[in-house]
């Protein structure tokens, strides 16, 4: 055996991973060759130092929990929606949709921030005057959550362009599924879903948009609204509308003007019946 062969087999000898023939050959060579013996000792020493001293990266506190929640949310996103997303990427409308999405994300942000600062100040003033009735408490809560989502720039927790994507996401989180019906409109495209805390309970919120302005649509099961007609409120710049439908009630919040929001509400009332 020559030195070069011996040195290539040295790790196997050190780690006891050589077969008996190679082991004998290497050991025999080491008896005869001083240079290779020196090398072996140095390499053993170096690897021992690595074993004892090399840096170890430990998982940071709470990492397991963070990864678990990420696994839960990505499970649907990737395994079930990826094929659909890839199909969509091939469609000619994809770039147009992406452009509109990115405009929604960033284009409206600059104008939105200035607008929101005014909204926050006005809303805090008005919230002091808010009525103590149950319905008004929910209106307040819905307005507060909508405002918080805008300020924190977390309008949606899950982006989706199709209704079934939102439904799967809510189901994966064992959240209540809003009875959306066939809610598809070019004027008010779907943006995604969000989970809010409304009146002490978790509520499923579906987010639509008109141009760059988001609209939060919340469905609360139970008879929280007594009126089947649409009631509206204003909290600062946020227009709120709500009505009872079936076994629950719909609550809409947006900084869109009242007239435009009314047309959205008409659409929801018709579509959610289907």
């Amino acid at each position, binding site marked *: 055996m020559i030195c070069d062969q011996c*040195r*290539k087999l040295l790790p196997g000898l050190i780690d006891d991973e050589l077969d008996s023939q190679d082991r004998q050959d290497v050991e025999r060579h080491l008896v005869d060759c001083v240079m290779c013996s020196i090398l072996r000792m140095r390499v053993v020493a170096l690897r021992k*130092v*690595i074993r004892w001293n090399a*840096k170890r990266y430990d998982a940071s506190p709470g990492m397991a929990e*963070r*990864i678990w929640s990420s696994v839960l949310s990505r499970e649907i996103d990737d395994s079930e929606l990826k094929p659909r997303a890839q199909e969509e990427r091939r469609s000619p409308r994809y770039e147009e949709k992406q452009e509109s999405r990115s405009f929604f994300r960033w284009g409206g942000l600059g104008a939105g921030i200035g607008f929101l600062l005014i909204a926050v100040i006005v809303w805090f003033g008005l919230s002091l005057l808010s009525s103590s009735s149950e319905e008004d408490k929910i209106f307040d809560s819905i307005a507060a959550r909508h405002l918080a989502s805008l300020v924190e720039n977390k309008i949606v927790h899950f982006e989706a362009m199709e209704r079934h994507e939102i439904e799967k996401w809510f189901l994966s989180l064992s959240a209540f599924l809003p009875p959306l019906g066939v809610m598809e409109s070019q004027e008010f495209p779907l943006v995604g879903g969000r989970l809010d805390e409304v009146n002490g309970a978790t509520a499923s919120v579906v987010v639509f948009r008109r141009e760059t302005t988001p609209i939060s649509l919340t469905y609360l099961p139970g008879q929280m609204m007594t009126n089947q007609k649409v009631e509206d409120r204003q909290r600062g710049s946020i227009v709120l509308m709500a009505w009872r439908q079936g076994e629950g009630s719909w609550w809409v919040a947006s900084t869109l003007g009242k007239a435009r929001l009314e047309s959205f509400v008409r659409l929801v009332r018709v579509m959610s019946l289907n």
Partner: protein
Amino acid sequence: MMTDSKRTRYTLFSTLIAPHLDSACTLAGWMVGSDSVEDVVRDACFRAMRCLMEEDSETDESNGRVLLLSFVHQSGRAWVRRQDFAAGRYLNSGDSSLAEADSKLSGWGVSSDVSLHRDDALHRIRDCSEAEINKWLMGLPLACRVAMVLRDIEGLRYDQIAQVVGITPDQVTPRLAEAQRLLHRAWMVDQFAENERRDDL
């Protein structure tokens, strides 16, 4: 309330993935650096979970570790490729400092006047600081570094290293041999530099 499917996933995660997060972080840290460890490990965990959910055969705890590390290796390599591409490093054919070192040292760089009983190098190696060790290890090519981290820090067997890296067990020995050679060379280069500094003084 957890659904059955969610409970199954949680059981798999808590028994097969979560106990090995430290190992996963160590491998990811040596591949991509500390800043991106969590991103790489998160991606690997997701892939491992999907694999476990699809797999019919039972996976025990040690296989869970190998499975997770193999996904960390894949995610880490993808991350390194993206970074290299972004930095234009794919255009560079080699590292000039290593080439220079090679010209000073032939082969393993052991001078012929050293005898077995007079080699004081062992003492100097034992006195190496943690920073020096980390620098030499980080200077190894990725494939060699991964093999060395899996063997010497994580203590995996050669067949397990082969599974993690996606090679045959026979290919592990040459990678470790190359890692040892380069590590020894890096140590020698530092020794030369140290000697030159002493001579200057």
